[in-house]
Structures are given as structure tokens and as C-alpha cells.
């Protein structure tokens, strides 16, 4: 009972802090906060796929797809911002379902490789269509909300809130049963009536949608991107590492993982002038070794029927 109350106090404090953060800090911290929230969205989105036992590198592809679709519909078709986001999400849904169907029979490392290939193909397409995408020179868009970071912060916080709501729903509904059954034994799950194809596609598509939203946000926020950045594997790997270190199959885990790792990374970057990435890498290794279940891995499993 005590733990129960403490948990809600912590969650309430976190929500309040997240809400007032941009108003009590300067531009530098606002910027850092925005990137952290974006990575929290990515880490959570990576976890959505992981819940159905999908180790995916397609997030890089969907991030870039979101960035490019949103930027191009905004620039070339004159879509307003929200419509350019919607267009990116729609395209992502179509592509994710198609890719999901094509890779239905693959699991584990084979699925990972197929999704990696998908991201690489998108990178090549972005590079090879200079008339549409600007090729290696990349694209530029006007700055989001006229450069008012507070608004950008609110937008990405809103996207994260949406991802959190989706995540909690997945965690507390029949999806939880289906996913954990599919992780243990997909065969037994299907024999007991779980349409494993549907749940696998649902998890993959939801996951793609939030990577796409993060990408769409990113390009408008930074105002410019190139294919090697928007389709950079670093994005996919970082989301995976944050989700794993924070604690898989949970809402708090990936979010916490993103916050903690982003803070550590930034602290290292400003305090250690040379080779901070090496120390950062060592911290990641130590994290995996000593916290195999992640930061929130020790919490109790949720029960469908109490």
C-alpha cells in the first residue's frame, strides 16, 4: 500500500516537473529537454516492437521516413504542419504493415537483418532521388513555431504523452496477455486463440508510428537534415539501448532510460573534452552487466486478473 502511494507521488511529481521545466530553465536546458523527450518517444517506440519479440532496426527507417515525408509535404505540397505530420503517419502505417507482412515468417536475428536492410534501402532512396529529396545535400524547412523552443517542447511532450497513454493501454489490457504469451511460446499462444499475426503487426505498426512522429518533429525542430543523419543507425541503436537499459516491456523503463542516458551523455560531453563516447560506452556496458533487467526491472509484473 505504501509503495502504491509512493509510486503515484513520483509519477505526479514527474508530470509536474515535465510541465514546468521549459518555463523555469534557459534555452540550453530547454534544447536538452526537447532532445531527451524525443529520445524517450523513440525508446518507448522501440519497446512497443520488443513486446512482440521483435528486435527491429526499422526504427531508423521510420524516423527518416517521418522526417522526409513531413518536410517534403510541408515544402513541396504546402501542407500545414499538422497535415504534414498526418501524411507522414499515414505513409508509415502503410509501409509498416507492408514490411510487417513481408517479414512475418522471420524472427530473431533474421528479422533484425531484414529491418536493417529496410532502413538502408530508404537511405539509398533518399540519396538517389535528389530532385525530390535534395539528395546528399539534404532538406531545410522553416524553424518550428518561429524558433520558440517552449512550443516545440510542448509539442514533443504531447507526443510523448500520447506514446505513454498507448504504452499503458498495451500494458494493462488484453494486449499484455497476448504479448507476454507470444514472447514465451507463439505456438501455444496461437493454439489458445491468439491471432499472433494481428498482434505482431499491431505492435510493429504502433512502434513505427511513434518513430515516424519523432522523425517528423526532429526535422522541423532542427530545420535541416541530410539522409545520413535522418536515416542514421545511431538513432535506432540509441533507442534500443535506452529501452534495454531502462527496462524492457514497461512504460517507465524506456522513458527513464532515455532521460538517464541523455543526462549522462550530455554531462560526459561537456566535462570530458576528448573521447567522452568511450566512457559513455563503458557506462552502457556496465549497465547491461549489472542491471540485466534495466533500471525498472525489479518492479512487480502486472496481473491481468487480480
Amino acid at each position, binding site marked *: 500500500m505504501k509503495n502504491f502511494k509512493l509510486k503515484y507521488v513520483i509519477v505526479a511529481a514527474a508530470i509536474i516537473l515535465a510541465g514546468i521545466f521549459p518555463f523555469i530553465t534557459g534555452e540550453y536546458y530547454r534544447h536538452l529537454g526537447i532532445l531527451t523527450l524525443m529520445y524517450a518517444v523513440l525508446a518507448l517506440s522501440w519497446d512497443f516492437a520488443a513486446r512482440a519479440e521483435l528486435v527491429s532496426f526499422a526504427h531508423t527507417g521510420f524516423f527518416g521516413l517521418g522526417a522526409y515525408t513531413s518536410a517534403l509535404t510541408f515544402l513541396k505540397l504546402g501542407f500545414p504542419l499538422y497535415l504534414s505530420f498526418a501524411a507522414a503517419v499515414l505513409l508509415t502505417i502503410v509501409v509498416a504493415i507492408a514490411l510487417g507482412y513481408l517479414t512475418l515468417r522471420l524472427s530473431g536475428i533474421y528479422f533484425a537483418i531484414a529491418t536493417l536492410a529496410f532502413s538502408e534501402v530508404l537511405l539509398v532512396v533518399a540519396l538517389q532521388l535528389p530532385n525530390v529529396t535534395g539528395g546528399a545535400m539534404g532538406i531545410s524547412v522553416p524553424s518550428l513555431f518561429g524558433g520558440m523552443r517552449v512550443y516545440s517542447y510542448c509539442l514533443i511532450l504531447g507526443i510523448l504523452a500520447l506514446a505513454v497513454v498507448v504504452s499503458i493501454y498495451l500494458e494493462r489490457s488484453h494486449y499484455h*496477455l497476448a504479448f507476454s504469451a507470444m514472447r*514465451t511460446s507463439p505456438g501455444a499462444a*496461437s*493454439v*489458445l*486463440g491468439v*491471432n499472433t499475426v494481428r498482434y505482431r503487426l499491431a505492435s510493429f505498426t504502433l512502434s513505427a508510428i511513434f518513430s515516424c512522429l519523432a522523425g517528423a518533429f526532429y526535422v522541423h525542430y532542427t530545420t535541416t537534415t541530410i539522409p545520413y543523419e535522418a536515416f542514421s543507425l545511431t538513432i535506432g541503436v540509441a533507442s534500443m539501448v535506452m529501452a534495454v537499459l531502462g527496462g524492457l516491456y514497461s512504460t517507465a523503463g524506456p522513458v527513464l532510460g532515455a532521460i538517464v542516458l541523455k543526462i549522462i551523455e550530455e554531462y560526459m560531453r561537456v566535462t570530458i573534452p576528448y573521447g567522452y563516447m568511450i566512457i559513455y560506452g563503458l557506462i552502457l556496458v556496465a549497465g547491461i552487466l549489472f542491471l540485466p533487467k534495466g533500471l525498472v526491472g525489479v518492479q512487480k509484473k502486472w496481473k491481468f*486478473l487480480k
Partner: protein
Amino acid sequence: MEILKIENLKKRFGGVKAVDGLSFSVREGEILGIIGPNGAGKSTLFNLLCGLMPLDAGRITFSGEDITSLSPHKRCHMGIGRTFQICQPFKELTVLDNVAIAAVFGNSKTVRPWVVKKYSEEILEKVGLSIKKDLYPAHLTTPDLKLLEIARALATSPKLLLLDEVMAGLLPGECDRILKLIRCINREGITVILVEHVMRVVRELCERVIVMNYGQKLCEGCYEDVAGDKRVIEAYLGREETGAQ
């Protein structure tokens, strides 16, 4: 009335013909025994029946419908339930949730969301696992895991239940408990196909027995006829009886 009919079923793994031209039908309400030495293809037959593996050739008709290429969850919804020879509990879920999943996904037409809990508890009550409902599978003993397999299959309200060696590795007393349970399940109108090595159980439960060997049907009949058949004694009983009992 026949509930299941299979015709010329074939499945091979590389050079191994696991199921090789098997045909038989199952009458509604009966308990059909399937016996045969290890590697005879019994578990593979179950995998073909519930749709976990695609078959190479043949046809499966269930309740008058051709289900040959139907996916496993659809066959479950039609009324085919099964247990696994090697228990496959969902280890992240409690015993109660293990049953709930079958009720929620395998039986959503009759079990509305608000009665899932009551329904799942009733199923556990029936198999005698009520007091363990909040435990995780890691804390269950072998007989309890077998009962959980049966409970989950029952929660989908099957018309046909495929039981794959549910007595393997159990003590005689524990066998008796499951034997009674199977009899009780059958009295409620559920047709059962029982793959079993414990001959006493087959003798007591099955009106009809099919003997498999190398993926084929060796012979078929009541227990006494089959047990006296010379080919069966050669293929199976002669070598296996002392070991299996």
C-alpha cells in the same frame, strides 16, 4: 456423426516421413487412443491437426468443414483444443492469467470480458488448481503443469481435445486424478484424442485405439484386439511395455 476426418495426411522433415499417408475419422463423443513407439509421428499429427505446421498433402475436415489451410487461432475458435507433450506455460503470467488468456482469446464469444475472472476460476476449480491460481508456472510441479495445460485448453471450450502424453512422468496416483478428469471432460460431450504411453490409461479410457508406426497406421481396433496384434507387439508393446509402465 463424425467430428473429425483426416485423409491421406503427409508431413516430412527432410528425409524423415513423420506422418505418411494417414487416414482416419473420429466419432463425436468418443475417446480415441493413439499409441505408437517414440518418433511414430503422434505429436506431429497433433501439430498438423491444430494448424501449427503446414502439411505436405492430405485433407482435414472438422465438423463438416475443410480446415486444411486454416490458421491455428481459427481452428481454436472452431473448437479444436490441445495440450503440448512438453508443457508450454506462459512463464511471465500467473496460473490464473494463463487460463484467462485462453478465455479471452479462444472463447470470446461465450466469455464476455466481465466474466473472464469467474470463468477462469471455475476452470481452475474443475481441474483442481484453484489454490495455486496466483502462483507463477516456475513454482508448479510436473502434475500441476499438466493440469494447467488441460485447464487452458478447456478454457477455449473445445469440441475436440487433443491430449499429448499428459500422463508422462506422473506417479500412478497422479495419473488416476487426470484419468478421472479426462473421463469427466468426455462426459460433458467433449471428444478426446489421447496420445498416451501409459497402457493402463488407454485400456481404461479408450473404446478405440489406433496404432501408429513410422507415420502410418499400423492397425486399429479396441484395446484388447490391438494389444494382441502381432505387428503391434513387434513394433511397440514387445519393446516398450516394460519400459513404459
